[in-house]
Structure formats: structure tokens, C-alpha cells
């Protein structure tokens, strides 16, 4: 039995054919890539499909798309640290590109900002079930008056759902269960599924994706959604691998996924929302090419002693920003890329990880923690073009240097550990296959990693 998996990225359409061995393991038959044909995605897709099908017809086809840089979601909540944060976490876990996030009542300026860059989806949250009824209703009114063409996913206080439905009767509205029914029980899954469904119905229309759906009879997954699910499958099908962080670094964005379970420890008090087992955060401003300028600035802020701070480095950063296809062609440029990668990874891990600080109490020192504590997570996986293809690069040297943030709180990022590279850049492709064959896809993915010392 053979399988084909294709991932339509923003620059490359990558594909691979796999075959099941007699032992039920996935073997890589062939891997290929074609530049993404932005005007009509079907052309690049078909070129990859034909190249792979030269090995014989495949029994199953899986594919994903991150075209358009994923789907743009604006999140609305009430309190920044509660429902607004929960809406952000939910949008990220659905594979969305979070364009904006709002708290409390939407202002005229907020509506103007939404109108200026119209998101695909507005995730409207706020209030626990039976809780705050003012803000969700008021924000629904504001959105109704603004008549934005975006799909609105309502995942707030379910007791005012009828009012919201009535107010937004003229809009493209989907109502799902509250993403935070009570403060200690997050429920992101219904909103997450709704966002993915909108992706399928809305984003696939046009740009040739509809053509692919018709020809193949299958629907695509959003790439980051598939990778999130894949992270979850690794945690369940390969528990012996342990907790890990997966970094997917591209030209424009850096995504961090982590599998981690918070355990209560004596002397530590946790504050804020309960942490999910699997968490994804996206840094839309950090990347190796389009976002190289921000990476260079992150380097300056994080490790000024590493910053070459010369005209040569500056020229390189400008060059790769305007010509994202640039590959380094001398040791100096390779060093520059490594510096950018190091800064991206450290900064995105810093934003992904939680914080801790000590408080003096009558009972002695107590640690106050918010977010997740990844200090004991020792496995780091790197994927994405640069990380997959650069054998000598190892980020774990730079991460332990993450000390405290600007507020003096300790950053709970991993303290280095074993770094593994997705040598053949198979993770996005295996993530697609995991939808149908999770155990085999997980096994193949972990096997194909190369430990970097």
C-alpha cells in the first residue's frame, strides 16, 4: 500500500510518497518539491503529484495548505488574561494566523482596524457560562453595525447566545460552545473545529484549491492544524519519547508547539488559565527571510555580544528580506543565518514559555508561576526549511542563556537538552498522513530525526 502526502507552502509545494513495509512501517519512496504556483495552486500541486505518481498510483492521498499564510483570525474577549487570552490560544491551536486581539468593549478604533485589514474569521468570546452578559452582547452589536464580511465564530457566554444570534442575524455567524465555560475548565475544541471548518469552506474557494478538492475528492488540512494534531499523536502514540518542544521555523513565521503536562509542586502557586497539554504559539514577526529584519533586532536585544553589527550583516539581512529565495553561499553568510535562527528560536521560546518569580510570605519563599514550565523538557525538534537542512546548527546552546525578562521574572524555557533535526523535512507531510495512520506516521517521524550533538 502506498500513500502520497503533499503540503502547499507559501514558497514551496512539497510532496512525498510513502509505502507500508511488510511490518506495517512507513518507508519513504520519493520526495519532491515544486515552487508554489500562487496564481493557481493546482498547477504546482499537480506537478508534484505527477512526479510522485511516476512510482505507481498511490492508494491514498493526503494534503495540506498553509497558502495565504494561514487563515487570519481576530480574537475578541473580555479580560486580557482570561477570555481574550483563551481566544488567542484557541485561534493558535486551530492553525490560525492571529491578526489582532481585543479585550473589553470594541471601540470605534478597533472596528476601524478590523475594517482596514479584514480577517477571515472573528472569534468572539467573553464571559463564562451564565457569567458576563454585557460585553459579548455589546461587542456583537458593534460587529453587526460594522457589517464586516468576516465569518464570526461565537464562543462566549452560552446564556446570551440567543441574543448574539439575533443581533448578528445578518452576518455569517457560527455559534459553538463557550471556550471557557468556567474559569478553571478551558474548552477550546468546539471553536477550534469551527475555525478549521471555515478554513475548508472559505479559504479553499479560489486560488485553485477548489480545483484540487474536486479532482482528488479530498479536503485539505491547514498545515499548522495538522502539525498540532501530529504533536498530540506523538504524545499519545510515543509516550516513551517524553515531553518535547517542536519548532517550525519558516521564512516569515516561527511556530512553537510543545507537549507538556503541568504538575503541581510544593512551594509553587500557579496563576492564570490552566495550561493545555499541547500548546502552539505563532510568532508572525520572526523568520529567516521575510522577517529577517525583526530576527536581527531580536538578536541585538538578546545577545548583543553575538551581533556582528556591521554593514556586511546589515546588507545580508536586507538582501534576504527582499529576495526570500536567497541561500547562503559562503561561510560568513552561513554564520549570519545561524545567528538569525538562534535569535528567532530563543525569542519564540521566550514568548511560548511561562514565567516565575519568588514572593516572600509568612511561610517563606513561594514561587508564583504563570504559563507553562518547560525547564525540564529536554527534547527539542527542529523542522522547516532552514532547521531541516542545516546539519551543523544546534540551538540548544543559546537557550539556557534566557534568564529573566524585562520585569525580572524567570523565563521557564527549556534548558537546552537534546536537539533533533527533521532531516528529510517530513514532519508536515507525516502530519497529514497521521490523520489516517497516526501510529505509523509517528513512528516514521521520530525515526527520521537526526540527533545533533
Amino acid at each position, binding site marked *: 500500500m502506498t500513500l502520497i502526502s503533499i503540503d502547499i507552502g507559501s514558497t514551496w509545494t512539497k510532496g512525498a510518497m510513502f509505502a507500508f513495509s511488510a511490518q506495517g512501517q512507513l518507508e519513504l519512496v520519493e520526495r519532491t518539491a515544486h515552487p508554489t504556483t500562487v496564481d493557481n495552486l493546482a498547477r504546482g500541486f499537480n506537478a508534484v503529484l505527477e512526479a510522485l505518481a511516476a512510482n505507481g498510483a498511490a492508494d491514498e492521498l493526503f494534503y495540506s495548505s498553509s497558502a495565504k499564510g494561514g487563515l487570519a483570525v481576530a480574537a475578541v474577549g473580555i479580560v486580557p*488574561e482570561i*477570555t481574550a487570552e483563551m481566544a488567542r490560544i484557541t485561534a493558535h491551536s486551530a492553525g490560525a494566523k492571529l491578526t489582532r486581539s481585543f479585550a473589553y468593549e470594541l471601540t470605534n478604533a478597533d472596528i476601524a482596524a478590523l475594517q482596514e485589514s479584514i480577517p477571515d474569521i472573528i472569534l468572539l468570546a467573553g464571559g463564562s457560562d451564565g457569567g*458576563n452578559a454585557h460585553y459579548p452582547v455589546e461587542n456583537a452589536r458593534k460587529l453587526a453595525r460594522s457589517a464586516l464580511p468576516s465569518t464570526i465564530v461565537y464562543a462566549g*457566554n452560552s446564556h446570551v447566545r440567543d441574543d448574539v444570534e439575533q443581533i448578528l442575524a445578518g452576518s455569517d455567524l457560527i455559534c459553538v460552545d463557550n471556550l471557557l465555560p468556567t474559569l478553571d475548565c478551558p474548552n477550546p475544541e468546539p471553536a477550534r473545529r469551527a475555525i478549521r471548518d471555515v478554513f475548508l469552506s472559505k479559504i479553499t474557494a479560489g486560488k485553485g484549491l477548489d480545483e484540487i478538492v474536486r479532482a482528488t475528492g479530498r479536503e485539505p488540512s491547514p498545515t499548522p492544524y495538522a502539525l498540532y494534531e501530529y504533536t498530540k499523536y506523538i504524545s499519545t502514540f510515543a509516550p516513551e519519547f517524553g515531553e518535547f518542544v517542536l519548532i517550525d521555523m519558516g521564512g516569515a513565521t516561527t511556530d512553537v508547539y510543545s507537549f507538556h503536562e503541568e504538575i503541581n509542586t510544593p512551594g509553587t*502557586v500557579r496563576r492564570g488559565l490552566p495550561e493545555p497539554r499541547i500548546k502552539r504559539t505563532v510568532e508572525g514577526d520572526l523568520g529567516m527571510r521575510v522577517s529577517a529584519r525583526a530576527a536581527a533586532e531580536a538578536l541585538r536585544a538578546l545577545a548583543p555580544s553575538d551581533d556582528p553589527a556591521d554593514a556586511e550583516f546589515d546588507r545580508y539581512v536586507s538582501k534576504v528580506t527582499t529576495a526570500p529565495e536567497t541561500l547562503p553561499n559562503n561561510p560568513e553568510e552561513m554564520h549570519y543565518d545561524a545567528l538569525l535562527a538562534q535569535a528567532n528560536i530563543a525569542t519564540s521560546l521566550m514568548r511560548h514559555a511561562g514565567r516565575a518569580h519568588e514572593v516572600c510570605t509568612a*511561610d517563606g519563599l513561594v514561587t508564583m508561576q504563570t504559563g507553562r514550565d518547560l525547564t525540564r523538557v529536554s527534547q527539542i525538534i527542529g523542522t522547516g526549511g532552514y532547521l531541516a537542512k542545516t546539519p551543523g546548527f544546534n540551538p540548544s546552546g543559546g537557550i539556557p542563556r534566557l534568564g529573566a525578562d524585562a520585569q525580572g521574572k524567570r523565563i521557564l524555557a527549556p534548558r537546552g537538552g537534546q536537539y533533533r533535526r527533521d532531516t528529510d523535512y517530513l514532519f508536515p507531510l507525516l502530519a497529514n498522513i497521521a490523520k489516517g495512520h497516526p501510529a505509523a506516521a509517528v513512528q516514521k517521524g521520530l525515526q527520521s530525526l537526526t540527533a545533533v550533538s
Partner: protein
Amino acid sequence: MRATKLKVVLGVIGADCHAVGNKIIMSVLAPLGIEVVNLGVMVSQDEFIDAAIETGAEAILVSSIYGHGEIDCQGFRGRCIERGIGEILLYVGGNLVVGKREFSTVEALFKDMGFDRVFRPSVDLVEVAGLLKSDIRKSQATTVQTERIAHRLAG
């Protein structure tokens, strides 16, 4: 007329990590029909207020056992007003101050800070629940009345 809702936010304020009393309060109030959003220990003023906004709670119950309540509770009502829930019921109880002071002075001190009711450590929690219910009903009745007046004025 909406159904009477009895929802309260509960927690131990400041750098106070006494968890047992907190659990006892919760275990007494919950079976008496009061929905408790329990934030546990070491809760800041803003965390109480955040939770009250999201859950639409009718009251905030602040405990303090370690003697620093006087410092931790300073400005609580003002902060509620700033954050848009100035009318919420505020209860406080426990070992609220350092040293031996007449309870009536302690009560006056916290009422001055804007707390609606102040309780000594030995208070019967069933009695607290009773007061809570009647206070919430009273404040809801006022809200409904205010809404009616506002409606009449608008109409």
C-alpha cells in the same frame, strides 16, 4: 424577571498561602446553593476583579489569615470602580490585622475601605451564607429597579 443567581468569587488575598480555610468556606457555601468561583491562595486584587467580570459574580469574598489584610485590601473598592464593577458586594474575613484590636475598630476600618461586611475568624459560615443570599437579593432588586427607571426614562 430574571432568576436569582448566587455566584461569588472566593480567594485568599496577597502573599497569604493558607489554603485550608479557603477550602472550608467553599465546602460550606457550595451545598447551600451558592456557586463559588474559587481562586485559591495568593490572589491579587485584580485577579479577584478579573474573575468577577468574566463570571458576572454578584459578590467577592476576600479572606486573609496572616495579618497583612489591612495592607492587601487597601483601595479594593476603588479598583472595582475603576474596572467597572463598582457596585459589587465585597465581603472580607479572617485574621485581618496584626495585634489585638477590638473587632469593632477592625470592622470600621474595613467598612471605610468600602467592604460591605467584615467577619471575625470565629464567624459561623452558615450565617455568612444567609447574609450573602439576602444581600445579593437586595442588590439585584435595586438593579432591576434602576433598570426599570432607566427604561421608563428612555421610553
